[in-house]
């Protein structure tokens, strides 16, 4: 299994959403809306990271294969 192609995206996304959800909330200036903004940042980070994670985990070990029909799509893939 090509591990590198999994580790790099994993690291990048985890770090990115980690910054959005974990670091940015501390940088929000104090004001009446601080609570709302912090909640929004954390929830956005959690939801988006989770969604991406589910997408990548489900494709990690494909159990079956893409069935192509022999029209120009497959030919195009072959040539590239």
């Amino acid at each position, binding site marked *: 299994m090509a591990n590198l192609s999994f580790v790099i995206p994993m690291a990048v996304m985890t770090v990115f959403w980690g910054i959005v959800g974990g670091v940015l909330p501390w940088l929000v200036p104090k004001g009446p809306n601080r609570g709302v903004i912090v*909640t929004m940042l954390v929830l956005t980070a959690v939801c988006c990271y989770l969604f991406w994670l589910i997408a*990548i985990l489900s494709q990690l070990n494909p159990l079956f294969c893409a069935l192509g029909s*022999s029209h120009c799509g497959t030919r195009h893939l072959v040539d590239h």
Partner: protein
Amino acid sequence: MGSVFRSEEMCMAQLFLQSGSAYDCISELGETGLVEFRDLNPSVSSFQRKFVSEIKRCEEMERILGYLLREIRKMGIPLPDVEVSPVAPPPKQVLEIMEQLQRLELELSEVARNKEKLQRNLLELTEYGLMLRLTRGFMCRSERDQLGPQYEEFPFLEKDNVTGCTSMQRLGAKLGFISGLIQRAKMEAFERMLWRACKGYTIFSHSELDECVQDPDTGEVTKSVVFLISFWGDQIGQKVQKICDCYHCHLYPHPDSAEERDEVLESLKTRTQDLQTVLHRTDEYLRQVLDRASESVCTWVIQVKKMKAIYHILNLCSFDVTNKCLIAEVWCPVNDLTALRRALEEGSRKGGATIPSFVNRIPSNGTPPTLLRTNKFTSGFQNIVDAYGVGSYREVNPAPYTIVTFPFLFAVMFGDLGHGVVMALFALWMVLCEKDPKVTRSKNEIWQMFFAGRYMILMMGLFSIYTGLIYNECFSKSLNVFSSGWSVRAMFTELHWTNETLRTNPLLTLDPNVTGVFNGVYPFGIDPIWNMASNRLTFLNSYKMKMSIIVGVLHMSFGIVLGVFNHLHFRQKFNLYLVFVPELLFLLCLFGYLGVMIVYKWLAFSVRDSSMAPSVLVHFINMFLMKTDGETPLYPGQMVVQVLLVVTALLSVPVLLLGKPVYLYWLHHGGRSQSSYRGYERVQRGSVEDLSVTLSQDMEEGVSHSDHSISREAHPEFDLGSVLLHQAIHTIEYCLGCISNSASYLRLWALSLAHAQLSEVLWNMVIRLGLRTDSRAGSVLLALMFILFSVLTVSILLLMEGLSAFLHALRLHWVEFQNKFYGGTGVKFIPFAFSLLPSGLDQDGLMGEAPSVL
């Protein structure tokens, strides 16, 4: 502030207003909009209240103002915009305004009456003139044809006093003439009636007027016909007269000779000119008066409205024994108490009172209303939460979490990059032009709905862009940003495919077992190869269903965890152990474990053992039945773990069912011999949630010992039966709900599938036709197809699917998420504020544009 997570703390206060300055104090409170007044005279009808005469006066003023506005509107005079909202006038100024208004009304009605009379006169004169002109034509004709030179034979002419028509003597018979105008619509009937009644003894000549004359009675423009009836005999004359009256003809005296006719025409001309000048002058004067009035009419409208509101509030207050002071009971947010005091001081100062009005906080035993302060961004989300039910006093508010989870769930069901971009751009446009008055004042209800939700739509669009990128769908086409992880070339090199293979086999399988075919997972989203695969749906369905379950279980667990904050706030620690823990265990042991199994299967099973890959669903069902059914275990020790989980879940049901009632029963009956302090605490905790809410509120207020005795007497009967029933219903609802709600989240899969399929159909059947034609006409066809494509995309995919996904995401929030922790049985706090008043005159459309400042 942090008040967005929980509603604000409220207190009941008594306002003691000095009679002289009560009006000004309430006016000040109305400007600042701090408090909600309670009705202290609920048994008194509205006609018996104290300030009824003042309200009647206000309504009279409103009536006159409405009349003024209608007249101003009719004249077409523009109304100036009110920049700064005027304050309510003091009572002395009110009489001035009333007097001015009455004077204006009198003047206007008089002028209007005169104008009407003049116009009627003018109409008569014009008609007479036209009629004379046209009948000259008749007479000339008849001269030539019938009467001929014998016209001069009739020397004397008598004016018949009875019929008022001129008659000529001819051979002993009187020849009479009646001339006038009749409406075009009635002419045929008139003619027929004349013929039948007079049996041919009349000659009826008519000709149509080219000019349209305005009827002053109805204001309509009707076509009229000039007629001339000549008849023989007196009796006929009377009959004709009666018939003319019947048909509402305008009769005018017919001149005897040509000279007389010319004379009359001349005089008519001068008279008409005079009348027109007078009318013109009257119009100018009317316009002047209305111009002057229009300057202050808008201000007056607002002032009268505010005054009426103040008197309504004054009616809610009660007088104290000395009759010098008004007492009002209000709900006030605790944070605003200082502002309230300041407002009262300001009001007293304006009213010139010797003794200032003051505020006194009192303990209350009713449930306070719920106040949640929102800004223009959060108000949309708060509205959709409140639409389900306004939160109970001081319970956790789901709105700040809804700001993200609602657009996210919407986007999961809507996920398409192209559609998301269009939606986000539309919302961005609405947000950028939100200051434009033309946009804010539009009366179109559907546009107002979209505009009120502009921030929500913007969030929905942005999240849809993200999920569209992950689903890899842009108008149903996939983007190949990073190179696809699947390679067909490898099949050629490893399995020795040839072009022959491609030609002869309609369907080919890429075998991931062959090295080089699957080169690694696509780093962001769904691999674009699936867009070309014919078993695309098989893969996507499995992926989306599992995703829905995982998202659903996490969303519901989040809801249960939010309930912890409620338990902690209302000092019901026992709820933590007896309600929260069993609920969480039940959900996570069963459906959380399902999620774990899903993830485990993704990680542990690859294509090498795909033939033995277990079905998660089968394992899940077997878990309940506690048998293996010959399936290979997912992991060693699976049976033990699953039995443990099922037993834990099953055990948490009786704990949930009986734990709380038994504990409350023990508290109420078993702890009676404790110390008095414990007793106070016990009473506070042993009662049902309502009372504990108010008592905990009292504890927060710091009203301590004086209430000690009150709370002792005030604790309700502890009814084991009702608590048990309540808890049983809650348990059954929760446990069955866990299963049904988890399945309910599968709508995330269903709607995203529907959206993807619709999108694909639209592409394949519409645009692809345009892109595939190779001839010159293809460009025209492509343009047409694009128009059709865009119209269908906006109407079906954006509007219809968008509305559908919106509703389903809303249902998921209202039912599946909120019934884990939300009560929603509160009352909204509606402060007395002038800015919230509905404007009655606006509803008639008389004001034209509503003032933006109130």
